């Protein structure tokens, strides 16, 4: 392994990307229960809105946030000549993603505790 910030961002990007593809198809199937009518939809949603899924959604937020802000970083690299700042940009993308994850995570946990 040739380790570097670029390598870490690459691995994380691919890993979150593949995870999100799998999630996307699950998501489409779950929400697809709406085609069987309101009752079927509500029954399915009851399952996936349980506490366990809520906790897993924090991981989902982390994956989405990282993948999105790493993507923004890449778009900036593509369209502007900023290669000299490659390391700081990686840390920036990571920090912004962590920030959004933290906010989402706190809100989810709050809602969970509040409802329990």
């Amino acid at each position, binding site marked *: 392994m040739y380790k570097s910030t670029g390598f870490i961002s690459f691995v994380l990007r*691919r890993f979150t*990307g*593949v995870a*999100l*593809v799998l999630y*996307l*198809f699950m998501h*489409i199937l779950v*929400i*697809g229960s*709406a*085609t069987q*009518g*309101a009752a079927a*939809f*509500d029954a399915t*949603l009851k399952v996936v*809105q349980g506490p366990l899924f*809520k906790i897993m*959604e924090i991981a989902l937020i982390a994956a*989405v946030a990282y993948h*999105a802000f790493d*993507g*923004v970083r890449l*778009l900036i690299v*593509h369209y502007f000549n900023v290669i000299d700042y490659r390391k700081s940009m990686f840390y920036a993308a990571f920090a912004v993603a962590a920030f959004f994850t933290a906010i989402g995570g706190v*809100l*989810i946990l*709050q*809602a969970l505790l*509040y*409802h329990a």
Partner: protein
Amino acid sequence: MRIFQMQRISAIALLVFLGIHMAVMHYPPWEIDFRTVVIERLSSPIWKVIDIAFLFFVLMHALTGAYVVLTDIQRVNTYKRVLAGAAIVLGIAGFIYGTATIMAFQPPV
């Protein structure tokens, strides 16, 4: 190459659509059911258009992404035509099923 361009375009589109999606569908207390979706969150037909566009771009981004991840591996790249075919089929199937789902959110008459 076209795949690269598709990825960048859908990526930029997703930044917008995912932002909208999160703002509209996912906020505390993170509980929705059929009624809230239809009445509170997707009442205007313009939402159907936005959601179908979102579905289109998210499928494009996911499938091109998966294709690139897989074909970057030398041994898998031998089957790139099969993979491209599978991606197109999955994309069309997902789009049809997803559109049907979006259309299913109709207020009960």
